[in-house]
C-alpha cells in the first residue's frame, strides 16, 4: 500500500465521519431500512405525505377484508372515507394503528416510519390517535381523570407513580375541556355522560395526546344535530394543524367538512374526489344503491 493510497483512505474516513456528524433534514445518512431514525417524535413529511399505504392486503379466513389498498394523506388534510358496510374502513384503521397485521403491503407514517414495525402503544406515542366506532372512555374515572390519562407525557410505570400535573399541562387540559364543551362535567364519572358527550370526551382524549394524525371512526354517530354541528366546527378548526381521517355515514356532516372524499368498496379504493364528484360517479351509485 502506497502512502498516497493511505492518505486518500484517511481522507475518506474523515469525510465520512463529518457526514455522520452533520444533522440533515431527512434524518441522518445511515440507511433507514424503515427503522425510526433519531428523534422519534418528529415525523418526516418532507415528501408531502403523512400517511402512506401501498398495496395493503389482509384476509380473515379467506375473506379479503382489504384488497390491494393504496391511499395517502397529506399533512394538515381532512380526508373523509365513506363506503358501504364491510368495505374495510375499520379494518384499515386497525392496520394503521397496529391492531391488525396486514398479509402484505407497506404502511408508512411520514416517509421514514414503517408502522408495521410498531405495536399499538408505540404507534399512539408516534402521534396517531384513534377514536373507536363505539365510544370508548374509562367509565369509572371522571372526565378530568380521563383527559389526564390521555395527556402526552412519559407513559412508563415509574413516571405514572410520581406524576404531578404541571401548570402548562393544567392549562392544556382546561383548554381541551372548553373545546369539547365538558367544562361543567369536569368531576363527573365518564360512565354517566350522554352518548354524544362520551364521543366528545373521546375526541378530547385524542386532543390531549396531541397527535399529528387523527383517525376518527364515525365520530358523530348518536349525536344530536346541534352536537354534530359543533363537531363539524371543531374538525374544521383542527384541519391544517393536524391531519384527520374521518369515517362517516352522515352525508350532511361530510358535506360540511370534506375537501376530498375517498370511497372504499370491497377493501380497495373505488373512487376519490370531491363529494359531488364521487356522488356523480356511476360505480359509486351502483355499490350504494345496487341495481
Amino acid at each position, binding site marked *: 500500500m502506497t502512502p498516497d493510497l493511505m492518505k486518500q483512505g484517511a481522507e475518506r474516513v474523515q469525510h465520512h465521519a463529518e457526514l455522520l456528524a452533520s444533522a440533515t433534514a431527512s434524518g441522518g445518512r445511515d440507511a433507514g431500512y424503515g427503522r425510526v431514525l433519531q428523534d422519534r417524535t418528529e415525523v418526516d413529511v418532507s415528501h408531502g405525505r403523512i400517511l402512506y399505504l401501498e398495496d395493503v392486503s389482509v384476509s380473515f379466513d379467506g375473506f379479503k377484508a382489504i384488497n390491494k389498498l393504496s391511499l395517502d394523506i397529506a399533512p394538515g388534510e381532512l380526508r373523509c372515507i365513506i363506503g358501504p358496510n364491510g368495505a374495510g374502513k375499520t379494518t384499515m384503521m386497525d392496520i394503521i394503528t397496529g391492531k391488525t397485521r396486514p398479509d402484505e403491503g407497506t404502511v408508512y407514517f411520514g416517509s421514514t416510519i414503517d408502522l408495521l414495525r410498531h405495536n399499538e*402503544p408505540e404507534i*399512539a406515542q408516534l402521534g396517531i390517535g384513534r377514536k373507536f366506532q363505539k365510544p*370508548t372512555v*374509562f367509565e369509572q374515572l371522571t372526565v378530568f381523570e380521563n383527559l389526564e390519562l390521555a395527556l402526552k407525557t412519559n407513559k412508563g410505570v415509574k413516571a405514572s407513580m410520581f406524576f404531578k400535573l404541571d401548570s402548562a399541562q393544567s392549562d392544556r387540559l382546561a383548554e381541551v375541556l372548553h373545546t369539547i364543551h365538558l367544562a361543567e362535567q*369536569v368531576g363527573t364519572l365518564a360512565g354517566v355522560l350522554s352518548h354524544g358527550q362520551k364521543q366528545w370526551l373521546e375526541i378530547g382524549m385524542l386532543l390531549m395526546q396531541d397527535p399529528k394524525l387523527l383517525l376518527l371512526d364515525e365520530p358523530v354517530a348518536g349525536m344530536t344535530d346541534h352536537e354534530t354541528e359543533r363537531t363539524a366546527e371543531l374538525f374544521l378548526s383542527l384541519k391544517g394543524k393536524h391531519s384527520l381521517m374521518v369515517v362517516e355515514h352522515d352525508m350532511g356532516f361530510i358535506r360540511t367538512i370534506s375537501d376530498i372524499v375517498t370511497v372504499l368498496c370491497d377493501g380497495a379504493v373505488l373512487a376519490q374526489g370531491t363529494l359531488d364528484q364521487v356522488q356523480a360517479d356511476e360505480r359509486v351509485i351502483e355499490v350504494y344503491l345496487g341495481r
Partner: protein
Amino acid sequence: MNKLILPAAPALLTRKAWTAFLVCLLAVGVLAPMLNLLVPAGSALHLSDYAIALIGKIMCYAICALAMDLIWGYTGILSLGHGLFFALGGYVMGMYLMRQIGRDGQYQSDLPDFMVFLDWKELPWHWLLSGSFAATLVLVVLVPGLIAAVFGFFAFRSRIKGVYFSIITQAMTFAAMLLFFRNETGFGGNNGFTDFKRILGMPLATPGMRMTLFVLTGMTLLGFFLFARWLVTSKYGRVLQAIRDAESRVMFSGYSPLPYKLSIWVISAVMCAVAGALYVPQVGIINPGEMSAANSIEIAVWAAVGGRATLVGPIVGAFLVNGAKSWLTVTAPEFWLYFLGALFIVVTLYLPNGVVGLLDKFKRKGGAA
C-alpha cells in the same frame, strides 16, 4: 374563557380516615398488648391468647385480601393462585424456623427431622441460605416475586385475559401443591414443616414473642394499606383502573399495559408472600395444603364480600368471613359450608360492591334525606 377550577389531586387519606387509621394503629400497637399482657386473665377486659392468635392470623389473611384487591379490584385481573405466593412466603420462613430447631428435634441431628427420616446426609442446595435470618427475609420477597414475574411476563405478553388467566393461575398453584407433596423436592412432603421451637434464638411459645409477631403483623397490614392507597391514588392507579375498564383505549392512548400489569401482579404477589411469612411463626405449621385451590378462591371471596376496589373493603371482608368461620366452626360446624355458600350467593346477587358498598349506599341515602 372562564378560569376553570380543576379538581385537586386526591389526598392519600382524608382527615377522618387518618383518624381512623391512627385509632387502628393504637389498637394494634398499644391497646391489644396491654389488654393481653397487663390485664389479669380473670378480668372482663382481658384479651385472651386465643383471641390474639385468631386476630393475628386474620390480619395475615387481610393482607392477602388487600393484595387481591390491587390485582382484581383495581386492575380487573382475577387471580386464583394467590395462595401459592402466600404459601411460598410461608415455606421460606418455615425453612428458617426448621433450621432454628437445631439439635432439639426427635433425632437430635443438625438436619431437620424429615431429612433424617429420608436418610439424607446433608442439606440440599436450596436449603443452604435457610440458616440466615437476613437471607430469609430477602428470599421471602425474592422467590415469590421472581416466580410471579416470570409467570406474569409470559401470561401478560401473550395477552391472556379474564377467565383463562384465572384458570391458569389455579392450575399453577395446584401444580405447585403436587410438587411440594413429594418428599424428594425437600419441603417435608405432605407433613410440611412444624414443631418450630424458636426464632432468632428466642423461644416462639412465649406471650412476649406471640405479641411481638402480632404487633408486627398489624403494622405490616397498616403499612401495606398506606402503600396500596398511595398506589391507587397516583396516576399509576388510575391507569390500572383504565386497563380494567377499557384496555384497548389504554393502548391507543400510548400506554403499554404489560409493565403495568406485571408490576402490580408482582407487588400483589410479594404482599401475599410477606403475609405468609408472618403467618407461619404464628400458627406454627406450613404444609402443601396451603396451596390448595380452595385457599386461593377464599382470598377472592374475602375481597368480594368486603367490596372490590375499596382497599378497606377486602380487609373488612377478611375479618367478617374468617370471624364468622371461627365462630361457626365451633358453635355449629355442620353449617359453616352452607353459610359460606349462602354468603357467596347473597354477595353476588345483591351486593356487587360488597359490605363497604352497602354502607356507602346507606350513607349517601342518609346524606340526601
